[in-house]
């Protein structure tokens, strides 16, 4: 497919030099940037989406990786590009709303044209299956009984795994009584959870597939269908805004993208996300699809940007 399109391109080379107006969009390949390494979750999600996006938009779509700095390097680089619509990045809650508020990066809430949201999964609090804790009440009692003994892990400072634990323990007013142990990536952290060196870990439902773990609480508005016995954070006694936390992500282009181009991309994104192929992919990979159009996503993104300020100050970042 790539080869034939290369040949096609060679024939079309002469035509490409003609002037560009929004009506012609797109007239060359579109680049989806994964701000993390090839083969990671974000990268594979984009690679799963790309062929369907390609079909919907009628032009080649390729995924490239630009990793580093917890995703901020890719976002910083994209922010400095002209808003042509040919480059978009898949950014998660942490890259788009947390990192710019805790680090000195050249982008902020106004640097983007949100195109569409793609996925969102509520986070949960997990313990190892052989842990004595059966409920959040057990956890609260144990932490109060022995302050400083219990440790929660994370895949890195400022990551969603860190923030979900901050929501839990800050929401329960226990932040001073537990220790935070960051790891490099969730692999080593999960290993220590299994080995018993850390006691709590926060992640999405997907973690359940990776080992013998027990969820005690979910940061969602209501209980999950897949875990009807696991209470929501609100039920456990955590007040807004810390009671809900989703790992969401979507496509962003640099700020100031022409409305005509936004419409083309948003339409393509809508079609791609709802295509049978991508639905099947999402099903296989455990991705929870949550599609929003440009206006809706923009409003959601800005609301999250402000709401997460509470989380940031609670985390002490």
């Amino acid at each position, binding site marked *: 497919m790539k*080869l034939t399109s290369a040949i096609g391109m060679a024939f079309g080379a002469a035509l490409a030099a003609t002037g560009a107006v929004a009506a012609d969009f797109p007239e060359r390949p579109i680049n989806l940037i994964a701000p993390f390494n090839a083969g990671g979750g974000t990268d594979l999600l984009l690679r799963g989406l790309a062929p369907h996006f390609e079909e919907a938009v009628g032009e080649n779509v390729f995924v490239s990786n630009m990793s580093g700095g917890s995703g901020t390097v890719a976002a910083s680089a994209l922010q400095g590009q002209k808003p042509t619509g040919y480059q978009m990045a898949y950014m998660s809650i942490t890259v788009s709303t947390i990192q710019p508020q805790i680090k000195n990066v050249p982008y902020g809430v106004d640097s983007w044209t949100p195109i569409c949201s793609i996925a969102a999964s509520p986070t949960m609090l997990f313990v190892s299956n052989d842990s004595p804790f059966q409920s959040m009440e057990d956890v609260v009692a144990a932490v109060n009984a022995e302050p400083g003994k219990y440790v929660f892990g994370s895949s890195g400072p400022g990551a969603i795994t860190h923030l979900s634990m901050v929501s839990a323990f800050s929401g329960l007013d226990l932040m001073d009584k537990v220790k935070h142990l960051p790891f490099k990536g969730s692999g080593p952290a999960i290993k220590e959870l299994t080995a018993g060196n850390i006691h709590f870990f926060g992640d999405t439902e997907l973690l359940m597939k990776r080992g013998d773990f027990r969820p005690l609480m979910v940061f969602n508005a209501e209980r999950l269908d897949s875990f009807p016995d696991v209470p929501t954070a609100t039920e456990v006694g955590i007040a807004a805004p810390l009671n809900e936390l989703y790992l969401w992500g979507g496509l962003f282009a640099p700020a100031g993208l022409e409305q005509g181009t936004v419409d083309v991309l948003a339409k393509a994104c809508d079609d791609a996300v709802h295509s049978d192929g991508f639905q099947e992919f999402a099903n296989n990979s455990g991705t929870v699809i949550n599609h929003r159009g440009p206006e809706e996503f923009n409003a959601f993104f800005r609301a999250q940007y402000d709401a997460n300020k509470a989380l940031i100050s609670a985390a002490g970042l």
Partner: protein
Amino acid sequence: MSRHLNERVFVLLALLLSAVALYRSSLTLSFSDVGSAHSPVFFPQIILVLWIGLTVIALGQTLMQSVKAQPIDGVFRLIILVAASIAYTNLLTMYGFFLTSALFTLICLPVFGMRHPAILTGYAIAVPGALVLLFNHVLGMPLPTSPFTHYF
């Protein structure tokens, strides 16, 4: 003191000064005040102190013995190639892989004694061109392209 002894001392002094400067800057970096293991500069400072100590020992050793460094045969060639390498790695993403690589090849080949114009041009176009064709158009994982066209 010979010219080469100076070069040795100069490199070690440069290493010493950079380590001291880095250490100084780590003192002024403002971080949230937390315990030693939590401090971001806790470990780097240990390493920098070791770095400084080792450089001082190496300086002492160097001043005591007089080993000649290898003479450089082609100073001029070297300077050209260093400048070309830095420029190449710096400009590659701005002007695209093909253009910068072709230019770099045109500089690099003569440095290594290859001056036939036809071969020079042929190599400068064929090798980078083949790489661009392979990665950008066959594998679909493009190298940086120039601001002029998205084909190379």
